[in-house]
């Protein structure tokens, strides 16, 4: 029971941290197809195929990998990390050329990764993490997500005024976003971050909505608050609803993740002016290129590659 609960909580934490995002313009597949002539086999293993975001990222990777002439197998263990270890071991037995982890924390599958390492099979993380035997992990640059949205907000309010930040520091990704955003706001001498509010999860939308209501009460005059920066889209939605319900004007909101509901709010032309989407398509494409280079004997320079996000605005 407890085991299962931990999984559900875990899954949930990942789900919101990787909240859905949709495609950017498709990129033409790379012309170059493999180097050695012999068909390569890649095993993609994931615990999270049920998650729309994971599914999308893996499908994009499959597309780019097949364009390179590789065989790709995808295995989903439906959040079962124990089974995931078995599937990695199976892939090792089948002597695949590379293993790709479609999300999921490598720390929870160490035994499988060690087996791959022992067999000399490289493991690549697709928004997973680093761990033993993981040659490289490709992921979003949370700092860039925070910085870009903060800059957009700062410019939207004309570089001056009071800003409220909605944060969730216990989550490392959201924390990195908030730190980068705060640093960006510090570049604007006339912007003051007056409040940093910790947003509780689960239930971030309603929580943020109530907090925003109270902040509007505490700062009752137009101009007291110029903007609200939220570490992810859910609290930005709650803030937007509170501002609209209170009929306050002159407050703009930005979020992060480019979720479908955020895009809908942004399109409405209300207080929610921008979000930023993680570029899973770009991640998948670049990972395929990195693996190809690896097959050709080019070892990557580091064990981590960070992909910038793509702004979602009204334009």
């Amino acid at each position, binding site marked *: *029971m407890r085991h*299962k*609960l931990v999984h*559900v909580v875990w*899954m*949930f934490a990942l*789900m919101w941290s990787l909240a*859905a995002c949709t495609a950017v313009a498709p990129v033409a597949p790379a012309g170059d197809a493999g180097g050695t002539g012999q068909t390569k086999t890649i095993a993609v293993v994931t615990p999270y195929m*049920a*998650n*729309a975001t994971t599914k999308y990222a893996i499908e994009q990777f499959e597309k780019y990998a097949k364009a390179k002439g590789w065989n790709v197998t995808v295995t989903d263990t439906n959040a079962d990390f124990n089974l995931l270890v078995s599937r990695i071991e199976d892939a090792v037995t089948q002597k695949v050329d590379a293993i790709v982890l479609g999300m999921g924390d490598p720390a929870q599958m160490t035994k499988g990764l060690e087996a791959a390492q022992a067999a000399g099979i490289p493991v690549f993380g697709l928004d997973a993490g680093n761990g033993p035997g993981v040659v490289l992990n490709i992921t979003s640059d949370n700092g860039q997500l925070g910085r870009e949205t903060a800059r957009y907000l700062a410019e939207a309010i004309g570089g001056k005024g009071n800003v409220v930040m909605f944060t969730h520091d216990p989550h490392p990704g959201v924390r990195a976003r908030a730190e980068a955003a705060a640093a960006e706001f510090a570049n604007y001498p006339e912007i003051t971050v007056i*409040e*940093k*509010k*910790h947003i*509780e*999860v*689960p*239930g971030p*939308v*309603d*929580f943020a*909505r*109530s*907090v925003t*209501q*109270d*902040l509007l*009460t*505490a700062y*009752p005059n137009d101009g007291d608050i110029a903007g609200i920066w939220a570490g992810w889209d*859910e609290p930005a*939605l*709650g803030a937007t*609803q509170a501002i609209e*319900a209170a009929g306050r004007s002159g407050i703009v909101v930005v979020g992060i993740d480019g*979720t*479908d*509901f955020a895009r*809908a709010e942004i399109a409405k032309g209300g207080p929610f002016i921008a979000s930023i989407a993680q570029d899973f398509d770009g991640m998948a494409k670049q990972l395929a290129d990195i693996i190809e280079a690896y097959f050709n004997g080019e070892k990557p320079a580091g064990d981590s590659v960070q992909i910038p996000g793509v702004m979602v605005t009204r334009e």
Partner: protein
Amino acid sequence: MQTESSLSTTQLRQDANRWLRTYGTFIGFLAMIVIFSLLRPGVFLSPNNLRNITEQVAILAIVATTMTVVMVVGDFDLSVGALASLSGVVVADLLIQGVGLWPAVLAALAVGATAGLFNGLLVAYFGLSAFVATLATMTAFRGLSLFYTNGSTLFSGIPESFRLFGQSFTGPIPNSVLIMLAVLAVTWFVLEQTTFGRRLYAVGGNAQASYLAGLNVRALRLSAFVISGLGAALAGVVLTSRLFSAHPTAGEPLMLNSIAAVFLGMTMFREGEPHVPGTFVGVLLLGVMSNGLNILQVNSYIQLVLTGVIILLAVLLSGLARRG
């Protein structure tokens, strides 16, 4: 002479103790209001802020009120938060699929009642402890919501008419507050003014004796869970209307907060028994505290600490007084 005066001193002390334990939490609540009003004059007690507070607590109050019924019979329902999420997801999905407003809402309530029935069967007829049974169903309901929505948020295509429950007003009063008042009134009436209610209290007081007295203890416990399931589902509908979107875990915070509110209520007015007026003041206390601390711009983490401390103080105060 001496004996008599010491007797009357003891009597006095007992009276003071009783007074403290019955009204201590309530006095604390009033003191909190006075402090917030003094620190932010003209802001905290403004009609706008009072409306905000009642709107903010309405959903929690609905869940806590029906949770009170389960706690009256001596059980818990840990599944209410997950159930609120599930019913919210159901109502949103049906509305998006074009099912009419009222059929969709009734379907969501039916989900709540069925889930409550299931909880009640597990506890009252299969003899599982309420803690274990509702912990398990909580997990299952959460899984259902996530499965149903694929972990995403439902928002696109919800008809405007659905704003009725969580966003519209009747005169100056938010409809969510009216729904809350109705739930409070009906539950209070059922618990305090009907034979059914008195029987629920009897079961909570002594299930064995109630059984020997000829009460259908199992059916009574089961009915309490059905009421709680209905309350959770109704809260889920109001929450989804308020957010105009269904998030698969949106109702989760309601579970612990509603239990906390009932416990706070048990320290008020009456001795150690859950009751609707106490629960309502408990809910208000939690709501006023979070609103007031936000307005005073208190650090979010410290707010959590203060909330815990206040709950402990209330329970300790009533407990200590009981010993005296």
